[in-house]
């Protein structure tokens, strides 16, 4: 039986319902009123990052993230640092009731400085278990941007990929051992693989030490006929949403015993209904039987920020419990 590691995916609720879990919200509001300073915000962001890391660890998660506490949204935090980009108005993030600010590409896209490295270093120091670094994927960045410069989706994707590559290199230099590239747009467009594949192949082939695991994540849909082509890329793992994309389970069996490592997104990250750990463990075992993975991550189907904090924590506990049941 391959090992199953309970993992968090990317973001995590930054506030909760208890008063002591509201400090980030209160500090940002105070900053807006001119009653708090940027230093106050920095201090609170650090505190909250530490708290959400410990919360993941306490829940039994063995691969945590920094919760993306500083991220305005899944796009802007990285995109706003790039040359050639202006950040514009609010746009709905896929089919959610949440928003992101849309990047407008006005000149050649160029990476300038590492955005995520300090966050990674801080999280790694704060965490007793390994921390995964997460970067936005080039195809999703391109799809969610207004392109006023390249007027060509493959070219823009490739320009973003060059920037993402520099960020990944910087993360590896800082000691990141698990790095995940988030590509939700990959499951939303028919031509996704044609357009994204060359750029993603470039990233998958990035030179790295044997200890580094560089993987790809999709969520909120299925890869269907594109699954095989994505699995051919030399990433170290492929993380899938097996709630909304459960159709992909069938395709995974074609890769039985080929050494592929999967992130199994079996816990619904956007519904409060709690999974049963025993049923979850049984589902993992069925996948293990059909795919024969050497090892896998068990994780939420999408970021947990779409849930209330208490529910998010319960979901992580369920993941940890199911992983334990699988290993029994």
């Amino acid at each position, binding site marked *: 039986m391959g090992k199953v590691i309970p993992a968090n995916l990317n973001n995590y609720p*930054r506030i909760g319902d208890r008063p002591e879990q509201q400090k980030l*919200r209160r500090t940002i*509001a105070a900053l807006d009123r001119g009653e708090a300073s940027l230093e106050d915000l920095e201090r609170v962001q650090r505190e909250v990052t530490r708290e959400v890391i410990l919360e993941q660890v306490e829940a039994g998660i063995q691969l945590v993230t920094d919760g993306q506490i500083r991220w305005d949204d899944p796009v802007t935090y990285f995109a706003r640092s790039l040359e050639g980009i202006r950040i514009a108005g609010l746009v709905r993030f896929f*089919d959610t009731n949440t928003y992101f600010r849309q990047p407008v590409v006005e000149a050649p896209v160029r990476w300038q400085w590492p955005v995520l490295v300090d966050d990674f270093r801080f999280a790694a120091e704060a965490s007793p278990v390994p921390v995964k670094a997460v970067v936005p994927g080039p195809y999703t960045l391109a799809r969610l941007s207004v392109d006023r410069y390249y007027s060509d989706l493959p070219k823009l994707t490739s320009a973003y990929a060059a920037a993402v590559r520099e960020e990944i290199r910087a993360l590896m230099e800082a000691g990141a051992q698990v790095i995940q590239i988030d590509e939700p747009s990959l499951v939303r467009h028919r031509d996704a693989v044609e357009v994204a594949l060359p750029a993603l192949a470039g990233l998958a082939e990035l030179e790295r030490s044997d200890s580094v695991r560089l993987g790809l994540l999709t969520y909120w849909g299925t890869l269907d006929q594109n699954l095989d082509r994505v699995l051919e890329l030399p990433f170290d793992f492929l993380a899938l949403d097996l709630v909304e994309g459960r159709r992909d389970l069938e395709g995974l069996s074609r890769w039985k015993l080929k050494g592929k490592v999967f992130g199994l997104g079996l816990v619904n990250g956007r519904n409060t209904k709690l999974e049963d750990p025993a049923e979850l463990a049984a589902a993992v075992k069925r996948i293990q039987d059909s795919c024969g993975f050497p090892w896998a991550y068990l994780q939420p189907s999408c970021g947990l920020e779409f849930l*209330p904090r208490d*529910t998010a924590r319960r979901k992580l506990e369920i993941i940890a419990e199911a992983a334990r049941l699988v290993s029994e």
Partner: protein
Amino acid sequence: MALLTTTVGSFPKPDYLVKARAAFSRGQLDMEELREKEQQATRECIALQERLGLDILVDGEMYRGDMATYFAEHLDGFRISGLVRSYGNRYYRKPIIVGPVRWRGPITVDWFRFAQSLTPKPMKAILTGPYTMMDWSFDEHYGDRRDAALDLARALHEEVVALYQAGARYIQIDEPAISTRPEEIELAIETMQIMTAGLEGCKTITHICYGEFEKIYPQMLRLAVDQIDLEMSNSGFDMLQLFRSHPFEKEIGLGVIDVHTHVIEEVDTVVERIEMALEVFRPEQVYVDPDCGLKTRTSEEAEAKLRVMVEARDRVRKKLSLA
């Protein structure tokens, strides 16, 4: 009457009401005191609309927080979640469906009656539609989007009938989520059929926010309403091209004011927007309104924007010698 003016529903809450709501949620203010403030704000909102010369009024939704959560709080089968983030530092409580959704009694009818008693002008009754309620809720009960949406439609239809019986002759069903999942347009059509059944002599309207209209047009014309209200200015009136390709046979609520910006439009800009639309629509098909609810603007901005809108409408009417 051609080119009647209206609004989409929400108005900015005055400071005293924002403070009262916060005090209420902390337990420092009782329901009765909060209700008084809500009524005061509703009175002021209706007086403002009369002063501006709008034709079809709204109650301003002073008593509502989140548009889905408000209705969920008053229906059976819902629980309200802890806080989740919508953007930046904004959080809201999201509905959770935990049992069969049922109407347990009038939700907005008293507010409709109160608002209508304050003005001789027609008052539009507005509620959040079943498709959007389903899409914006967690579902721990149905496990099937269609089942949830159909039960919601049956429950909310009872509210629609109660509003109709209370005298509402303009009923607007807000369905902002329709344009975010084009693959579910047939479900939205099915639920709207339930919502607007049996309303003789009543003008039915649906408001849909900007989204992938090219994927749901012309199917969206099969939504069982007299009027579709659309966010037009935010999208640079791109949709007119679509409407040229296949005639838009319904009435249109024409969003001519961008609600997402602090900038107050020039009258000429709004005149141009109305005239552009009149290349595609007959004047009696068109209702002039802002893109969306005004609750995120300041009171001053909302008033200034609406003043520009009414003036622009008056100019177009004059130019075209419309009554």
